[in-house]
């Protein structure tokens, strides 16, 4: 390892010596890149487990009178499914995974501000997942991912375990948020001003305070629920003076901002993918960055739109409705900017690009149903039905998960030094897109016709629609498996990627793939924004970077 980087690069410049030995190098690593990959792998395992539970749900719903699981088991299955997807898959992949791997490279830093804390954050995460799944042994949580009391107070022992598990993930998120925020504030390379930061960095920058603040509030709610369940101290039990609505306030004060934790980083991912594969500067850079900020701020002010039917004071409904609808404006601005970026571009339909385009299509639909739901009169009708399920899956699967897949295909070559198979990737995309819409589009109908969510058995009139949804869900599962196979296959068999297979312009693509332990031989300086295609690259000091590339993964 030939390093002699001593330049006046400030904080960004100091280097930890590279550890030798498997444990310190790959297991308890303090390198942000390894930690990012650890998050992605762990969350990938949970994606498989959560997906398995999803298929159990869909098999159960093939028949109107269920029959495959008891209603109690069914309740456990969908509760753990939801909790897994939100806290063990999407949030860790987007923040812990892509966040850790990508943004320190993009801002020209050697690592995050607190590498040891970063390692700690990661190692809180697998035990939390084990605890959540361990809860099946003692009666898993059964009141949905939202665990509303008084249902959750009567739940079995596993519900307390759920509290503890989610609390752990929460602590991990909070620490990550603090770490990222300090890194982004203090460790940017010389010349990396706020208006030259790649948009993925902006997305992480806006997400970090959400992680830090919202998650702590959730921690309080979880602690209270845990205390109440274990020690009988009444926060939420109405018969002892508590209030079930208090939980809803505390929970949604977190969980509404949390949906932005799950989507803002995706906005960042596609904002990198679009200009790269359309070969055009991103349209409205500043609008995209600032609309993220306004989404984050508004996100803290709209939580009660989840409580329109919970008996909140009616005079509060109007402000919460209006504020919620306001969020559609910055969101619309973004969608407009992306479409304008694609407009007239020389589009290269790589798999990453396909997933990003798929994201726009489905996320927009999810956003539109969101605005419907924000209208109190409509929500009174749709609340608690499959319409909600449709909305949330359009934004979370069509939005977040497609964005994650786009990110995987986009950054895989940087992480491993190898390309994923485009052929498999395209199969995966098209099956995913068809399977996804086939699964969730009918749910809008079911909801409007009045099928309640979270039921193990239902009125036979919905059976046809449910069978359609269930059948397509298998297609979607196959699509996801294809990508997982692709990831595993390409580690050894993928074509060598070279350092910049997409001709992308952000900093991480100007160094070897996979990058060296210390990221940069010399911290580069930056003198313009990264999106001006056809201009020379806006970096100085990268001349020596590519002289000795590490071998790609899987090479011996």
């Amino acid at each position, binding site marked *: 390892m030939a390093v002699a980087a001593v330049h006046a690069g400030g904080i960004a410049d100091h280097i930890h010596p590279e550890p030798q030995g498997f444990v310190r190098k790959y297991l308890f690593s303090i390198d942000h890149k390894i930690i990012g990959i650890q998050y992605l792998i762990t969350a990938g395992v949970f994606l498989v487990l959560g997906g398995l539970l999803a298929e159990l749900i869909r098999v159960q719903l093939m028949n109107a009178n269920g029959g495959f699981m008891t209603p109690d088991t069914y309740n456990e299955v969908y509760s753990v499914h939801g909790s897994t997807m939100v806290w063990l898959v999407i949030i860790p992949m987007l923040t812990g995974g892509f966040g850790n791997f990508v943004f320190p490279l993009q801002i020209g830093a050697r690592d995050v501000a607190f590498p040891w804390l970063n390692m700690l954050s990661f190692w809180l995460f697998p035990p939390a997942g084990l605890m959540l799944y361990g809860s099946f042994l003692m009666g898993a949580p059964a009141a949905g991912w939202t665990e509303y009391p008084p249902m959750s107070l009567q739940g079995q022992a596993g519900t307390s375990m759920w509290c503890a598990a989610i609390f752990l993930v929460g602590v991990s998120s909070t620490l990550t948020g603090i770490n990222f925020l300090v890194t982004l504030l203090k460790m940017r390379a010389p010349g990396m001003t706020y208006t030259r930061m790649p948009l993925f960095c902006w997305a992480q920058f806006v997400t970090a305070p959400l992680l830090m603040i919202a998650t702590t509030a959730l921690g*309080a709610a979880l602690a209270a629920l845990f205390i109440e369940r274990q020690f009988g101290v*009444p926060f939420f039990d109405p018969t002892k003076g508590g*209030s079930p609505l*208090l939980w809803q306030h505390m929970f949604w004060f977190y969980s509404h901002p949390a949906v932005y934790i799950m989507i803002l980083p995706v906005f960042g991912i596609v904002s990198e993918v679009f200009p790269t594969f359309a070969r055009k500067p991103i349209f409205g850079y500043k609008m995209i960055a600032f609309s993220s900020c306004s989404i984050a701020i508004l996100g803290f002010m709209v939580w009660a739109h989840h409580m329109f039917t919970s008996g909140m004071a009616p005079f509060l409904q109007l402000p919460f409705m209006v504020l919620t609808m306001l969020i559609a404006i910055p969101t619309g601005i973004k969608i407009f900017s992306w479409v304008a970026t694609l407009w007239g571009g020389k589009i290269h339909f790589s798999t990453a690009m396909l997933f990003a385009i798929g994201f726009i299509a489905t996320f927009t639909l999810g956003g539109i149903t969101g605005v419907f739901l924000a209208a109190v009169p409509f929500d009174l009708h749709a609340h608690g039905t499959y319409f909600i399920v449709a909305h949330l899956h359009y934004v979370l699967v069509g939005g977040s998960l497609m964005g994650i897949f786009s990110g995987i295909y986009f950054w895989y070559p940087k992480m491993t030094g190898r390309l994923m198979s485009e052929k498999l990737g395209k199969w995966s995309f098209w099956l995913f897109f068809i399977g996804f819409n086939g699964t969730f589009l009918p749910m809008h109908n079911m909801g409007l016709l009045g099928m309640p969510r979270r039921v193990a058995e239902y009125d036979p009139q919905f059976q046809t629609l449910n069978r359609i949804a269930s059948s397509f869900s298998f297609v979607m599962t196959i699509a996801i498996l294809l990508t997982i196979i692709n990831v595993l296959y390409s580690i050894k068999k993928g074509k060598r990627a070279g350092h910049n297979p997409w001709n992308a312009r952000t900093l991480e693509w100007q160094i070897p793939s996979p990058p060296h332990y210390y990221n940069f031989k010399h911290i580069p300086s930056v003198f313009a924004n990264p999106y001006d295609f056809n201009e020379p690259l806006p970096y100085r000091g990268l001349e020596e970077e590519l002289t000795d590339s590490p071998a790609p993964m899987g090479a011996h």
Partner: protein
Amino acid sequence: MSTPLTHGHDEADQLYIETRELRVQGFLLFMVSDLVLFSSFIFAYLYLRNSGQGWPPAGGPHVDIWLAAMNSVVLFGSGATMHFALENWKHRNFIKFANWMMATIVLGCLFLGGQGVEYVSLYTKDHASWAGSGIFGASFFTLTGMHGFHVFVGVIYLITLLLQATAGKYTFSRYTGLTLGTLYWHFVDVIWVVLFSIFYLL
């Protein structure tokens, strides 16, 4: 975390200066998230209190404002002694620094003792068990307990700082750790002002 690379002999100094800002900011952000934690429970308390049952709950325990007031004086006093400790460090007077630190630690312990007395008397006089006294238990014991826990952690933190300072970890020009410790202690003080107001005065 120092590295054997070709930095000059003052590399450790350099590293200290470079990472100081990081540590300060990280610590401040940690305190922000801690503040959110307290705020959430304070919100919960105010919410329960205003859900129509009155405070203190009918037939429930009554808190003793005088005991708490005395305890508050002790805690605010410890804020002052902590301030003097840091000032004396800045004026390069180690002995005085150590004395004020020890005073702070003693006052912190006194506060915890006072809280213990309060809890015991609530328990014996008013039979306000943690679980059995309804929303009083939920609000009062969790919030003051959480604060007490912060004081407890703070006392250990201050002891560590004192030992580290004695062992020569800080110099008279490099003492970010001590500043952060002071900050934490004042933070705990400020939280207590809020708790005192909402539980005993409101």
